[in-house]
């Protein structure tokens, strides 16, 4: 008896979920090849669209704690519990029980969750703990570094799930990794924005004036003043620069490592989700490029070239490009000059 198309579709869908390729599946049912191709692609697109719908890790964690509170309460309560009547007394009892459970259970649960994989029941706890760790970190650069560590963890998890043939978990973890890669970029961008508000050294003003081709008396006077006021880079700022460079190196190393792990995992995942992994790899490469560009382009080499146009002239309408390493250019003790300070080139232009 000829197989029905809906049975063929279901068989192929199940096989693809277990890791078989679309082409291989379709070749089993040549009579339905074109229809199956369209239908299977649609079904996986529906699944892909629905993947981002995940409970927030912190909600999941607290819901678990509350559930344990409910269990505690109901075990002790002689009366049948009805969820429809949420009275204050019961809620209070549940909350207290949940808090007790939380205090006792948190330490052991958190410890146990640290090695949890996406197919592990404690994985939600692990993600929640990671989020708390990020939330408690005040500095953007440190946050970016933590996210880099987390993306490396995600890459390992993706590879492990790919080994186990758990396509759905690979997809879900890839989504989380994409989000965390974004967070690296965003935190670096925030840090750069913050760094750009640090006053620049007075020598910017001399560059700006010289670029305008006018060496007026006023400009010469400015040069003298600023040269006089230039102060050496303090030990503290040197330490800051070193720690920033170290953090960036660490982020770059981890991102590169994550890319390698994902590239190795590629041949273990079905064709249908390779594009998703590739997207994540591209995202990681963009983050890595961003860091390489910053590290390999020290500000002292850029200070006189960043604002130059192709014909060697300087575009005075463009603000100097800044990144975290531009802190090298500043003496933190010199508060009088900088992109937005009194000696900023725009201000000088007005003069």
């Amino acid at each position, binding site marked *: 008896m000829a197989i*029905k*198309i*809906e*049975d063929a*579709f*279901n068989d192929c869908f199940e096989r693809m979920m277990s890791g078989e390729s679309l082409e291989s599946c379709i070749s089993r049912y040549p009579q339905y090849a*074109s*229809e199956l191709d*369209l*239908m299977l692609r*649609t*079904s996986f*697109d*529906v*699944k892909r*669209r*629905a993947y*981002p*719908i*995940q*409970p*927030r890790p912190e*909600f*999941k964690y607290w*819901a*678990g704690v*509350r*559930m*344990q509170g*409910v*269990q505690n309460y*109901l*075990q002790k309560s002689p009366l*049948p*519990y*009805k*969820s429809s009547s949420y009275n204050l007394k019961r809620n209070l009892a549940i909350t207290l029980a949940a808090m007790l459970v939380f205090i006792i259970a948190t330490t052991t649960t958190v410890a146990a969750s640290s090695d949890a994989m996406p197919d592990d*029941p*404690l994985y*939600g706890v692990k993600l929640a703990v990671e989020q708390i760790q990020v939330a408690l970190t005040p500095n953007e650069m440190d946050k970016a570094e933590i996210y880099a560590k987390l993306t490396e963890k995600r890459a390992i998890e993706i590879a492990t799930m790919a080994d186990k043939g758990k396509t*759905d978990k690979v997809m879900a973890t890839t*989504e*989380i990794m*994409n*989000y965390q890669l*974004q*967070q690296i970029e*965003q935190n670096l961008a925030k840090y750069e924005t913050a760094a750009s508000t640090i006053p620049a050294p007075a020598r910017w003003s001399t560059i700006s004036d010289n670029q305008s081709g006018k060496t007026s008396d006023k400009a010469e006077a400015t040069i003298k003043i600023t040269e006089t006021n230039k102060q050496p880079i303090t030990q503290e700022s040197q330490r800051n620069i070193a720690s920033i460079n170290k953090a960036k190196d660490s982020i770059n190393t981890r991102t590169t490592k994550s890319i390698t792990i994902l590239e190795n995992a590629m041949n273990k995942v079905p064709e249908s989700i390779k594009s998703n992994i590739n997207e994540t790899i591209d995202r990681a490469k963009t983050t890595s490029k961003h860091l390489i560009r910053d590290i390999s382009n020290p500000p002292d080499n850029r200070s006189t070239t960043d604002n130059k146009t192709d014909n060697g002239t300087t575009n005075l309408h463009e603000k100097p490009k800044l990144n975290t390493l531009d802190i090298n250019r500043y003496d933190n003790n010199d508060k009088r000059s900088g992109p937005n300070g009194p000696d900023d080139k725009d201000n000088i232009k007005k003069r």
Partner: protein
Amino acid sequence: MLSEEQIVRRAVNGDREAFTYIYNLHFDKVYRYIYIKVRSQIEAEDLTQEVFIKAYEGIRNYRWKELPITAWLFRIAHNHVIDYIRKISKEKRADLSEADAISGGDPVYMTEQNFEIYELKNALEKLPDAQREVATLRFISELSISEVALTLGKSEGTVKALQFNAIASLRKLLYGKINGY
């Protein structure tokens, strides 16, 4: 290692660890099922918690022979969502901005993802009830054919046909008509 049936039996007999195992195993799936129906993060979170509280209350009366635990849980979820929708009478549709995705931060990325979920939700709403239920349970909550069949009280053959028709309809709704499908 214990089988699913053994774990469920333990849960029925009041073993909290066994129930926690079931809870962890199905939590995400139930949340996704509810979210796609109410499409509000806050409502989906509340309803998901309530479904598991109901499940814990009712687990002592659960009989494995009548229904597998997954189907039983999804029946609770299905009924609870229906009750909720009835309760709010005129369905309060969540705004697009409320659509939740795991991604955050980058507005472009978020909007793309939310829009895709929004499109999917709209397309699902245009399906006949039976097709929508099958598609949601099968492709969003990732239940097996037999679990969907038992949850909905239909035969596996019927579910396979509904599944195929649902995907054909979603294809038309999401991308337009291509090659007759």
